[in-house]
């Protein structure tokens, strides 16, 4: 199965711009299904971004982050070809990790 994480990381000069899109329902716990039952909250709580083993960004999310969440940030110090490791964990304990090369 393909990864739930899509990453674009590109270095321009000494700055690396990172965009990530993660496939996840991000159920808020306030929405009802077709039968009228509440869909329990199911959402990513934390996403960590590490470049060459060093933390460059941590996202703490609640249920108000959109379905298939997206985030964009930039950091200094990354070079083309460096490894960017992204991991998420949700409130049910599920998780996924991917490593992308900075382009």
């Amino acid at each position, binding site marked *: 199965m393909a990864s739930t994480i899509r990453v674009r990381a590109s270095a321009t000069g000494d*700055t690396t711009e990172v965009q990530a899109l993660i496939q996840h329902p*991000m159920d*808020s716990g*306030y929405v009802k299904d077709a039968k009228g039952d509440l869909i329990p909250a199911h959402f990513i*709580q*934390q996403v*960590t971004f590490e470049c060459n083993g*060093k*933390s*460059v*960004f*941590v*996202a*703490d*999310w*609640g*249920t*108000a*982050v*959109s*379905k298939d*969440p*997206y*985030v*964009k*940030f*930039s*950091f*200094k*110090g990354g070079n083309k070809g460096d490894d960017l490791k992204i991991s998420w964990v949700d409130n049910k304990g599920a998780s996924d990790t991917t490593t992308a090369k900075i382009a």
Partner: protein
Amino acid sequence: MTIETDFSPTRRLILKGVGVIALAGLGVLRFGAMPAFAAANDKWPEEAFKQKAEADAIKALYGKTAEPSDKVKLDAPEIAENGAVVPISVTTTLTDVTSISFLVADNPSALAASYVIPAGTMPSVANRIKMAKTSKVTAIIEAGGKLYSATKEVKVTVGGCGG
């Protein structure tokens, strides 16, 4: 700056309540030039996400209050095309930024997202959030141990035969 992982429940409890000073006292982090704050913790801030009111969420997250600043540039649509996906971003000219958070005052729980900004990472984040209805959206920037904010109202309407 290196952030060590430490999942001690004691530390978490203290962080929620007292924040910076207690944290420094515990000495669980090796500090660089600047101190670390509650939001720079690497535990998911459960208490803050539980709070309904915006002020309570900010207090649970940072243990202090924010002051509006024109150095915080919040970008949000005037009318959200759909409350399920509202693109919101913030950037700032402030330095020593350690944390960025987004809050939606009229959502069931105000805190939407909070980001740890380690040294070397730009104080600028874009993300997409859900809004239950028309509301004030606030971005909080923690810089040099103080909180700065910018607020904008975003109108949200129900979906119809658009698109």
